[in-house]
């Protein structure tokens, strides 16, 4: 019977290795200089790259981080520092509810509140949709991290006459900062590969755009469109884009691990 659990572990790791091997085998050949500096070829043509999608991913995810991280960290610090009230209990519960919400729902939600009033699809609305997904994750991890800071630190600061807000910011949040940063980076890595909420917000764009008010391509959208197209050249670009996206996600994930390792957040 013990052997069966070993078998389960091997079977569980099999798809992981298969997917990574296929990403490298099928994606590496399309990743060259052109891949990073050119835009996609027209349907059916060969060559080209995904410069537009790489730029778009950075911009859309950047907007999401800019909106989602400050709000999420603020809300998380609130829950850790003033977490006893009924209001805080409601916030905590709803953050958990939103955390389990399918990402496609965030897409139609932001479409209704942002895309429709603006009258057109845009990279900005894509970033907002991803921020909606990030917010509850960042809130809950920030709360956990601030709670891990020993209570004696707070008491020492207050005993020295620190006002409450400086105690929170300069002692509690500072001590928890590596953990908060890790939580934030993990959330960024999670949303960087999201596609469904971007279908109705960023929409996608075969041209290179840096204007956040226009429809914008991301690697994830590009992979979806190219993979479901009938053109072999686009399929190759899809694999290359998937390899690059995976590398970006893993790089952010590793930065997240490094952030906690470099300084000890537990005090």
């Amino acid at each position, binding site marked *: 019977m013990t052997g069966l659990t070993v078998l389960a*572990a091997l079977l*569980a790791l099999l798809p*992981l290795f298969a997917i990574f091997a296929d990403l490298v085998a099928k994606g590496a050949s399309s990743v060259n200089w052109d891949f990073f500096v050119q835009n996609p070829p027209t349907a059916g043509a060969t060559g080209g790259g995904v410069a537009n999608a790489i730029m778009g991913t950075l911009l859309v995810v950047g907007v999401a981080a800019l909106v989602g991280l400050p709000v999420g960290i603020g809300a998380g610090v609130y829950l850790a520092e003033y977490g006893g009230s009924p209001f*805080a209990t409601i916030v905590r519960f709803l953050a958990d*509810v939103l955390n389990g919400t399918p990402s496609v729902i965030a897409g139609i*939600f932001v479409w209704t509140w942002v895309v429709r009033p603006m009258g057109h699809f845009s990279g900005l609305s894509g970033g907002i949709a991803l921020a909606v997904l990030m917010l509850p994750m960042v809130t809950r991890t920030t709360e956990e991290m601030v709670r891990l800071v020993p209570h004696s630190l707070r008491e020492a600061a*207050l005993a020295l006459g620190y006002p409450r807000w400086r105690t929170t910011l300069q002692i509690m949040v500072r001590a928890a900062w590596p953990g908060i940063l890790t939580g934030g980076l993990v959330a960024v890595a999670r949303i960087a590969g999201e596609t469904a909420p971007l279908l109705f917000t960023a929409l996608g764009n075969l041209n290179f755009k840096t204007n956040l008010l226009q429809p914008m391509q991301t690697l994830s959208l590009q992979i979806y469109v190219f993979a479901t197209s009938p053109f072999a050249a686009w399929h190759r670009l899809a694999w290359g884009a998937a390899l690059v*996206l995976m590398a970006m996600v893993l790089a952010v994930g590793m930065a997240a691990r490094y952030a906690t390792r470099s300084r000890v957040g537990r005090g």
Partner: protein
Amino acid sequence: MPQSDGGLARNVRGRGGRGDTAFRVTLTALAAIIPLLFVALVGQLLWSAWPAIRAFGARFLFSSTWDPVAGIYGAGPMIFGTLYSSVIALVLAVPLAIGVSIFLTEFAPVWLRRPVGTLVELLAAIPSVVYGLWGIFVLIPLLRTYVLPPLQAVLGWTPLFSGTFFGNSMLAAGILLAVMILPYISSVSREVLAAVPPSQREAALALGATRWEAVWSAVLPYARSGLIGAVVLGLGRALGETMAVVMVIGNRHDLSLSLVDPGYTMAAIIANEFNEATGLQRAALFEIGLVLFGVTVAVNALARLLVWRVARDSAAGSAAL
């Protein structure tokens, strides 16, 4: 557990009173965004879905007609497909995920636990659209060439495997979903198993049980509700998964028990049709979104309750969620 400071803050208010008030108001405002988002989300879904709710009533949930020309919409096949693909995923993923977590908490040498655990959790880092890409170009050809011919030769007469396999199918979607939810189920079940008190194991071993018997007769029963919670959490993930499913399930409004037939899910039809839909069709898609949202909220709440019952004493249990 609120961290009370025993009134210390009040005592020092003389020095930081105004700053404290401003700080608290700012943080409260940021925290208030979460309930605001929730109210805006539920209100908007209800509001946008209302024309469809009024036009079709409860029939919407069971009817299998989806006819934009006649303006008649029913979500039956999508609701069925969502549940069916998720059940397939659970059937495949649960034994593996629980097996992995038993291996990692009970049998694996200590040096192996961290690396293998990290690798399994790496499955959760792969974007959904990459799973879809892999499904289209690797999994489906694999199924077509090596898996289904022998399987259909033996089991082709059963309703589960009857029909012609064209590639895009319930089976392909179920397998992808299984791989995608595996890390979530296994990470929560690991936390749950680790939270079982060692005395349970020791008592069984002292009575002469082998290590496997100790796991089977003492650890697993103790952890049962938490493990069920882990499975329900995986179910919640599978129900709402969009991209990987939309790329391999075939997107057909059919009701079929056969695993080789194409199907549709609630998330998939929203992804496919939302941008082109207008009027009543858009309202119908919003109603599907509302149903999907309601189901995932209920499923996640249940999962949390179950895990919390086992792991309430360990901080790990709540962190895993």
